[in-house]
């Protein structure tokens, strides 16, 4: 039994924080109100000045298991999530073997039940081995609870294959998540095409490589009557394309944006820093500004990190050879606070809505909320404290993040899920 006194409560419905005591017992929020009586045996926490909010939910993570456990495991990945205040995740299926069948999905979910302290969901492949040719074993995966189909990391190249998959799987209530990229245009290097790619002498990937597929996949979804979710949008015109399709209202489209695309530009790559090498690549300040606008407007339904661990050995290569991707779970919430909430660019309600509520709604899960009768799924956030993202602080097995050794304002103090206190600092 835990009694949090004088916490300020964030919700998706209002930018105003409501001050209240919160009593948590038997895995539920039992009571709320000012000056609640202290029940016998209750642990009392003075939460004055701190913010209580629902646990975050990340709908785009790479836990690398099976196949790449040297980068991340389901255990280390979920501990990184808890470290950052995230209490549920959706894994991407680009593992080895790829998650393209019921048996592969079953093995991952079984693994997660034993080795993760938070619910770990997984998406499944659209095509066998993500090759873009034959359809994956879609219905078998649905039986195990898979809702999202994606060949993440690669675009399903053949539009006819994707259209057929959409027609088929929509019948089962599944939806499609699209990594948008024309490979012939993008090339292999994950650097925005522009002044910076010219300066560094690396073949750039033009934003149109992404924008073409955003448009293509929405059109395919419209034709199939499917729901398409556009992953990690990085460009201004990509955002505007989604905005335009949403305004028409004749196709079900949702979209996500990653914190790093809101925060960094290709200029940050500087002297070939591989911690800024990701796909889609970091673009320009104008793109960042547009993405922020899109997030505030709701063009982006959710924030997701695309948590993509790689070993130090791989990332310490030269820029061309190093793999794409950065980790995000340990750092996302604090970085959103430090760079956006604290400077007044948006309020906590947006964070809760986009990084918790809508992410769960996308997956058809009940939304976590700090309300009497709801299951306990929450975190306590100290806005005055600071977090230094040292190697030791990070719980992800890999530390390929631009935030390494940075100190940012804000700290996740406590994470409670059901009857368990998952984290306490």
């Amino acid at each position, binding site marked *: 039994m835990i009694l949090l006194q004088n916490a300020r409560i964030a919700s998706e419905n209002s930018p105003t924080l409501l001050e209240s005591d919160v009593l948590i017992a038997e895995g539920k929020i039992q009571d709320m109100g000012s000056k609640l009586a202290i029940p016998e045996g209750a642990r009392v926490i003075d939460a004055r000045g701190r913010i209580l909010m629902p646990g975050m939910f990340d709908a785009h993570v790479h836990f690398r298991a099976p196949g790449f456990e040297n980068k991340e*495991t*389901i255990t280390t990945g979920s501990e990184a999530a808890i470290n950052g205040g995230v209490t549920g995740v959706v894994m991407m299926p680009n593992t080895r073997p790829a998650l393209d069948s019921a048996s592969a999905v079953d093995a991952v979910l079984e693994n997660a039940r034993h080795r993760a302290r938070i619910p770990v969901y997984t998406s499944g492949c659209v095509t066998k081995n993500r090759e873009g040719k034959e359809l994956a074993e879609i219905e078998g995966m649905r039986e195990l609870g898979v809702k999202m189909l994606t060949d993440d990391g690669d675009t399903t190249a053949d539009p006819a294959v994707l259209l057929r998959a959409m027609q088929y799987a929509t019948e089962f209530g599944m939806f499609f998540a699209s990594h948008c990229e024309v490979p012939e245009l993008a090339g292999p290097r994950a650097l925005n095409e*522009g*002044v910076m790619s*010219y300066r560094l002498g690396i073949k750039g990937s033009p934003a149109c490589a992404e924008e073409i597929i955003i448009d293509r996949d929405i059109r395919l979804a419209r034709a199939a009557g499917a729901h398409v979710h556009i992953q990690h949008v990085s460009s201004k015109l990509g955002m505007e394309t989604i905005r335009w399709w949403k305004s028409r209202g004749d196709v079900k489209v949702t979209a996500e944006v990653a914190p790093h695309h809101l925060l960094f530009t290709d200029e940050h790559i500087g002297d070939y820093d591989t911690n800024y090498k990701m796909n889609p690549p970091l673009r320009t300040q104008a793109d960042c500004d547009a993405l922020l606008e899109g997030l505030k407007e709701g063009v982006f339904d959710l924030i997701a990190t695309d948590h993509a661990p790689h070993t130090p*050995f791989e990332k310490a290569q*030269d820029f061309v050879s190093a793999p794409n991707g950065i980790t995000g779970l340990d750092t996302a919430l604090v970085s959103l606070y430090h760079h956006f909430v604290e400077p007044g660019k948006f309020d906590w309600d947006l964070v809760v809505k986009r990084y918790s509520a809508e992410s769960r709604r996308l997956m058809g899960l009940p939304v976590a909320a700090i309300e009497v009768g709801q299951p306990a799924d929450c975190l306590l956030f100290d806005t005055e404290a600071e977090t230094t993202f040292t190697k030791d602080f990070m719980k992800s097995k890999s530390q390929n993040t631009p935030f390494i050794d940075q100190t940012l304002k804000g700290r996740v103090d406590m994470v409670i899920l059901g009857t368990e206190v998952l984290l306490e600092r």
Partner: protein
Amino acid sequence: MARKDLLDIASLHREEIEFLLDQSTSFKKLFTRSVKKIPALEGKSVLMLFYEASTRTHSSFEVAAKRLSAEVTNFNVDHSSITKGESVRETIETLQAMRTDYIVVRHSHSGLPGMIARQTTAAVINAGDGAHEHPTQALLDAFTIKEKFPDPRGKKVLIIGDILHSRVARSTSTLLQKLGVEVAYLGPGSLVPKYVPATIPRFTDYEAAMAWGPDVVYLLRVQLERQDVQFFPSVREYHRVYGITNTRLAEISDRGLYIMHPGPVNRGVELCDAVMDYERSLITNQVENGISVRMAVLDWLTPGGDFPRQESYVAPQRANSTVIMP
């Protein structure tokens, strides 16, 4: 002013460039003496690490190092296999163990010499990395231009060709601009990106570029081998639109313009054969000056000291190893 490495032109100060060009002049004077060797790098070792074949640059560095009395070793690189960053990392470990004093490196990946420089005590010279930089080429180009125009400020150099893939274009134009030379580009739309620096005017046709009034026309090598996709329809068309044809050579000759090219020349593509006999062609001067410039660079750099080893560096994992989960 001492530096450990020469990785690019962009980070060089004007005084450093002028110092290097002055030194090159002194070294060049040695060439007329019967004994061309001096003991400046006596007892030092220079390692040549060429992941891309290049007879010209390779032998130029080798001659330069030997004239300074250094010991030159070639590190055998298998040109037939694609050499990725991971295997380069193992090589770097080896090189550091060998405690070589200088490493001259060429690689098709931009930024790779910088990575080597961060992980070794050796002085690293970038002999060309991807489409990034080729600093000694830029220095020898500037040196060659200065021999004709001792005060090159306000002179105009027109660079023609594949700007997109050319490290020569990047390094040379950066250096020339630092010396107050005006630079302009001309080339096919597919090879001159629209986002090149705004300080460099971009011409779309030859006549307009000539009207700009260049003093030097610098032809880049068309790297036919590097083009995995087609950037222009045919070599013949390229020569007609962007090459120095016989007719154009006559005009260039009338105007008294100098012609440069980093070599090796694709005859009949960038240049018609007659250019080879053109009196104001500086192509062989460039080759000759390469040696003195590289001597100046080797003599200038200071190997050793604490190198800032990358924090994140850890021993390589076996390719198929997996960590048993708790």
